[in-house]
């Protein structure tokens, strides 16, 4: 990881060096959104799930790696992170639920529904991580 990459996520005082959580979070979010767009562009017709599954898998891996990297950060204010992230998770779970509802309303089912549901779950976890991290890094 280059120093400049770390700089963006370091605290202004430069006391705390953190992994590039925002950048990785945006990559994960981007991948899962591409998967969602790919599926949505073909629904309700039958479509090969392989590209969406690959994108979802890649997105979930980046998210997991992001969380792992963050969990290894020293002196990170986890209390503040969870204080913010849990409310954001509630809000984004509700948003993901609304999107899931509209797919269910239109009788989306089978593999497409599974991939869409998992994509929404990755989305609903990613955003609270980004919000919680952005707040906590300045604590």
């Amino acid at each position: 990881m280059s120093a400049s990459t770390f700089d963006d996520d370091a605290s202004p005082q430069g006391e705390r060096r953190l992994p590039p959580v925002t950048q990785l979070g945006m990559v994960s979010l981007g991948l899962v959104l591409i998967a969602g767009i790919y599926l949505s562009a073909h629904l309700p017709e039958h479509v090969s799930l392989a590209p969406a599954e690959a994108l979802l898998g890649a997105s979930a891996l980046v998210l997991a790696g992001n969380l792992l990297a963050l969990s290894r950060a020293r002196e990170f204010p986890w209390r503040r992170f969870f204080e913010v992230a849990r409310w954001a998770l509630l809000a984004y779970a509700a948003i993901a639920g609304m999107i899931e509802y509209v797919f269910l309303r239109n009788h989306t089912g089978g593999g497409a529904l599974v991939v869409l549901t998992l994509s929404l779950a990755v989305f609903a976890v990613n955003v609270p991580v980004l919000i919680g991290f952005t707040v906590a890094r300045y604590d």
Partner: protein
Amino acid sequence: MAQAVASPSEAAAHPAALARPDFEIVPRAGLPIVGVVLAALVVGIAVNELWPLEFLHVVAGAAWTIIDLFLGFVLGPIMGSLSPPARIEFTTKLMPKMVLIMPTVVTVTLVAGWQLSTHLGTNLTVNPLHGWVVASFIVVGVMAVIALGLLEPANIAVLTELKKPQPNPAVIERLMKRFIYSAGATGLMQVATFVIMTKLAAG
């Protein structure tokens, strides 16, 4: 009610030591309104009639577009030219409202838009306008990454920083820049939304 952040001597030593109004990061008074809007969305989708879906999609979409453009190109430059105390006061009044308004209008626009598209058949690959619908997905996807990855976290972080007894002006400045630039970028993307949506409406 204003909070005195620090003594005058501390204020001189630390530019953040300025009076700022008391505020809620998430305005609780707005939550019932959000609840009503989301309930209307659920009902609109359940009944699946053209007018409620069109109403929800157009009203929320117009709000989203106008707010992005206004924030990015009108309010943003104005905020940048304000004095720090004025900027802080403006921020504490504007941004808590944005915490509720933006996710709500975005959710309503997307969910009602999908249902409307299903109702009209424009999301079917055989529809001649399908390409435009997919283009709108892509534009919204790019805007979502910017808004969810940069804009929304910056919004919450600015407000959290301003809640601290000793807010750090450098942090606020940095996050506000991120917020305004992100809003400007999504504002530019909204121009593409105008093109796509007017084409879809014209048929």
